[in-house]
């Protein structure tokens, strides 16, 4: 263990004099990516040298992987024996004086990248004889107590803001670090002990309540504070710029945590819980993460109170089971039977989910989503496939201009000059519409003049024959999965066939689903059964983009498209996420249509009943259950805070209403009062809430169960330079 160690305010850490090693070191962590010029000044407070060695001369070495251009320190010393030669990196001579008050070492103009080690070691001038003479108990030791005077970057190298920052930092005289250097001159090396000895060098090991559990909780809390402010209809957006420089502006927690690239292992568990929710239901990821964060925060309080994590876990487990029971109890009567093809019923259940993403626009979005979903809902609603509701984002206009198309909207133009067709049969070819070439490279051998003359003609004739065959089969529209040859196009035009190119394989499959066509591999005469049918296909210009709108109103069409309009790409992306949530909610309600009151009414009721429940428990876990209940307050609190309302007032009046038996009272964010949710029509799906709470509780218990973290040294990679293990074998 280091004798003394501290962290500079700027992130530079210093550690000197580890016993068992022969040198002290200054570790510099500039926190910057590029190598920088770094100044470290330190002042030596005391300097002790074992008796008997007072008169020896010391040579100070520095092993910084850098040039020490100016070791101007030690200058305050009058002692002539103590010379720091200028501009040398080989070392210098230390005096044997017992007291050095103003030892001053400056490291200047050295190129450090982040986390370079600057090692010092002192070697007696004539170390070998001295050591022999001194014997075992008088190792030549030099003990230096020094303090970091100042540390900073040379600031010519930095930008304006950084300069200012460092200017203050250099003034930070009080930034005192005591460090001790003890230099034992006879080499003996100590084996690492304990777990250190067991594992490979470079691993990280954290254990115990303070180091592991509390730290984990802290990390999770940090994550949930990020997502929390996005909860609910008035949630704020986050601007996330990911590693590819793509900008996301969203309040969708699943997207945020996905793009955040969370590194902390415990926080990752929360992220995974959020993702599980997103995959299972497609909505409520924010509730999962924020609620888990709140549970962990309360767990920390319990730990500080003295509860053991295992007691908290057992309490939380009891509480979640009880919550699920209460949740069942709160289900609105008669909601378990719904007609998934009734638009009003669908909108009722979808409203809250969409409103939480696009508040104020749910009245426009919900009918669109509901209509699109109902259109493609199969006979057995449980088989509803979210992939069948497509979204086409077209820049320009406003949300009011959005529409639903029963069919597809392809973002490209038709190939030929024929741009519209109605009530036509469609032939789909995967392999492209062109003369077929062989896979292996072949050469056509021409033997005589006749063949040469006919070469081009026969090719033309062949293509014509193929296209003619397609046209004769009754198809009016050809869809190609690959390139359309010029010659082929020529004949398509001649036979009045509309040609469309769909290069994406998936789009082509959806196209087949839309039209009921069977994709053919080769250009040949299609079987009448393989032809699809469309009501209309036309190329339209929407907001400056040419799109092909394929409509098929007939039965059998299983794809519908929501055309979204908005003024910026970010808005469109966010609208798309809202639509995705809506569609996922539809899928969830096809599975389980039960609803519970939204707008925090359910949470308050859960909180109230859990508290009552906790009083009946005998063990220590009653504290945990009570805290679990309290955690539910996070939802109304956040909703109110995000809407700019007074959270405490709202919560207390919610409690009052609930206690008087009205369990359906939630927050009306528009007016900032408490109201019955059935008048506001804010209903959440039971299944969404169920999974969100379950995943959150599971994640929390997982995080709490951890008492040790052992991280292996990350493999390879030139980015981590603080472990030059294996480098010293030269």
């Amino acid at each position, binding site marked *: 263990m280091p004798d003394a160690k501290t962290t500079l305010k700027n992130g530079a850490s210093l550690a000197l004099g580890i016993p068992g090693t022969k040198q002290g070191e200054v570790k510099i962590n500039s926190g910057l990516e590029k190598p920088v010029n770094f100044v470290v000044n330190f002042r030596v407070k005391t300097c002790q040298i074992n008796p008997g060695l007072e008169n020896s001369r010391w040579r100070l070495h520095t092993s910084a992987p850098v040039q020490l251009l100016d070791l101007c320190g030690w200058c305050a010393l009058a002692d002539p024996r103590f010379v720091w030669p200028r501009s040398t990196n*080989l070392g210098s001579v230390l005096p044997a004086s017992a007291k050095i008050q103003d030892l001053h070492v400056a490291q200047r103009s050295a190129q450090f990248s982040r986390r370079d080690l600057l090692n010092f070691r002192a070697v007696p001038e004539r170390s070998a004889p001295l050591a022999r003479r001194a014997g075992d108990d008088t190792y030549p030791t030099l003990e230096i107590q020094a303090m970091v005077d100042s540390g900073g970057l040379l600031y010519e190298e930095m930008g304006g803001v950084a300069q200012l920052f460092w200017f203050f930092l250099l003034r930070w005289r009080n930034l005192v670090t005591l460090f001790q250097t003890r230099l034992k001159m006879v080499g003996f090396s100590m084996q690492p002990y304990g777990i250190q000895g067991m594992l490979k060098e470079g691993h990280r090991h954290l254990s115990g309540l303070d180091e592991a559990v509390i730290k984990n909780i802290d990390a999770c809390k940090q994550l949930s504070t990020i997502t929390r402010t996005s909860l609910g209809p008035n949630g704020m957006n*986050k601007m996330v710029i990911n590693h*590819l420089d793509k900008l996301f502006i969203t309040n969708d927690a699943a997207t945020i945590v996905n793009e955040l690239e969370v590194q902390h292992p415990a926080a990752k568990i929360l992220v995974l819980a959020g993702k599980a929710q997103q995959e299972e239901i497609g909505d409520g990821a924010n509730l999962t993460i924020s609620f888990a964060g709140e549970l962990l925060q309360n767990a920390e309080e319990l730990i500080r109170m003295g509860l053991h994590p295992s007691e908290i876990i057992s309490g939380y487990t009891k509480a979640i089971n009880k919550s699920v029971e209460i949740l069942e109890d709160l289900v609105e009567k008669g909601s378990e039977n719904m007609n998934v093809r009734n638009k009003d019923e669908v909108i009722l259940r979808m409203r809250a989910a969409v409103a939480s993403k696009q508040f104020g626009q749910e009245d426009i979005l919900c009918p669109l989503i509901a209509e699109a979903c109902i259109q493609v809902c199969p006979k057995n609603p449980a088989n509803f496939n979210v992939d069948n509701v497509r979204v086409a984002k077209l820049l320009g206009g406003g949300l009011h201009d959005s529409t639903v198309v029963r069919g597809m909207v392809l973002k490209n133009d038709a190939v030929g000059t024929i741009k519209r067709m109605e009530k036509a049969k469609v032939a789909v070819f995967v392999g492209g519409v062109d003369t077929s070439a062989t896979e292996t490279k072949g050469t*056509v051998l021409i033997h005589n003049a006749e063949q040469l003359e006919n070469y081009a003609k026969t090719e033309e004739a062949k293509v014509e024959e193929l296209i003619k065959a397609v046209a004769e089969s009754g198809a009016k529209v050809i869809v190609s999965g690959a390139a359309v040859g010029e010659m082929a196009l020529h004949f398509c035009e001649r036979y009045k066939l509309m040609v469309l190119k769909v290069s994406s394989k998936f789009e082509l499959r959806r196209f087949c689903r839309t039209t009921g066509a069977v994709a053919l591999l080769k250009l040949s005469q299609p079987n009448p059964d393989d032809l699809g049918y469309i009501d209309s296909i036309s190329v339209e210009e929407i907001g400056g983009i040419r799109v092909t709108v394929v409509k098929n109103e007939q039965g059998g069409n299983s794809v519908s498209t929501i055309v979204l309009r908005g003024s910026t790409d970010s808005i469109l992306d966010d609208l798309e996420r809202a639509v995705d949530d809506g569609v996922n909610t539809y899928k969830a309600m096809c599975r389980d249509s039960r609803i519970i009151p939204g707008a925090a009414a359910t949470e308050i009721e859960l909180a109230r009943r859990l508290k009552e429940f906790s009083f009946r428990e005998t063990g220590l876990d009653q504290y945990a259950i009570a805290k679990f209940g309290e955690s539910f307050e996070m939802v109304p609190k956040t909703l109110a805070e995000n809407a700019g309302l007074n959270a405490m007032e709202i919560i207390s009046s919610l409690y009052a209403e609930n206690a008087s038996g009205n369990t359906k009272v939630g927050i009306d964010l528009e007016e900032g009062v408490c109201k019955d949710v059935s008048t506001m029509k804010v209903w959440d799906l039971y299944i969404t809430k169920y999974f969100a709470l379950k995943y959150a509780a599971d994640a929390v218990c997982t995080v709490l169960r951890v008492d040790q973290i052992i991280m292996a040294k990350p493999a390879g990679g030139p980015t981590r330079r603080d472990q030059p293990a294996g480098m010293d074998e030269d």
Partner: protein
Amino acid sequence: MSSMLQPQIILLKEGTDTSQGKPQLVSNINACMAVADVVRTTLGPRGMDKLIHDEKGNTTISNDGATIMKLLDIVHPAAKILVDIAKSQDSEVGDGTTTVVLFAGEFLKEAKPFIEDGVHPQNLIRSYRTASQLAIEKIKELAVSIAGKSLEEKKSLLGKCAATTLSSKLIGGEKEFFASMVVDAVIAIGTDDRLNMIGIKKVPGGNMRDSFLVNGVAFKKTFSYAGFEQQPKKFVNPKILLLNIELELKSEKENAEIRLSDPLQYQSIVDAEWNIIYDKLDKCYFADRDIFCAGRVTEEDLQRVAAATGGTVQTSVNNVIDEVLGYCEVFEERQVGNERFNIFSGCPSGQTATIVLRGGADQFIEEAERSLHDAIMIVRRALKNSTVVAGGGAIDMEISRYLRQHARTIAGKSQLFINSYAKALEVIPRQLCDNAGFDATDVLNKLRQKHALPSGEGAPYGVDINTGGIADSFANFVWEPAVVKINAINAATEAACLVLSVDETVKNPKSESAQGEAAASAMGGRGRGGAGFRGRGRGMRRR
């Protein structure tokens, strides 16, 4: 390794930037305002142009908001939103790009003091959304429909719209001339309007008035084949064949190979090749058969000719039937400036039009082209939506008045926010005055007084750019399509709300290329360090 024992909580990847809370919101607003300030001065007939010099050395002179925004190369994530809305306005409406950026900037500017005072952004957003809906309804109510008018009348009305747009551009001096040209072009392409059916050809030299409209297609004389001089230069009622293959001596498919066993056959092969060429030529008679031929016409022009003449583009010269041929009344080759132009006019299907633009410097013509594009878009939109409103800031003042009036009926904070929204709308007349050098306060007060008249007769009053006073914009034919304003207000409000709704920015470190560089330099550093050690006599142990 000592620091390893006391790990700091590193939640996110190293190098991740986060900023949150009020200060970052204010800084986002500031960034957007800075962008709006750049384009501010380009608004209106007296707006100034910007000269943008990019790193490639290209110079662009423009006062088209979208063009400037695109060329500015903005990296600030919040300010990028403004670029997006300018683009959106450009693609949806085609004009009013400066307006939309100004609106968004002004909305945010008005919001800033509230944010600083601690108002929750969501409250602002809600009020802004309500205000924008009210504003749009009001515009729809005030708009005057031009549907159902006769063609002549419609033409003159559309001309007014085009003139309003053009007056704010570089070619404002000739706005009547160009306005009628634009209207004719748009009317010519008919209902099935496709923008690329209007071609704009630029010929440096001459003056603006030499520009002309071809009711058909025109393109610069293309590749000349041998015998071109003998070809006639003018036809009346010609048939036109469109081909997209080369009419040259060219070897057959590359993958065909000829192997001969008998040397006698060689001559027959050569003959055969010639036969193929003759065959081709037989079908397309050139100079000696009094046929004009233009080769290597660009794809776009070819499509336009096809649309204009009713022909279809052929890939083969075999089996050319009558119905694939196109017709037009007159074809001629004419001298324009120092270029020769091939012009097809009097086309039967008449779905195309070409504007040949003349003028001095290259940049000037470029800007003129952009201006015409805006005007064309405006006319198209006006034709499609058939409603117009008074320009010159009149409609903005009227909505502003309406919103202020409406705000008084609201109790609560929302009143303040809607009021400031209304104030933000006044930026258009204010900026018009500022750019023209008038006393904005004075003019604005006159306008406010007019608009506040209870009879409502002051509603069409806007800034009179000629006298520096106020005038009835509607009577002066300063008109713009309602859809321009509706879309501008919609987009600007959405953008402002989006910026206001952000409370945290997280910037992840760049991956791939960026990291590759860092890794490379780290490797280099290490290599140097290692070499340095060895040079020092004895190996230093680096612990």
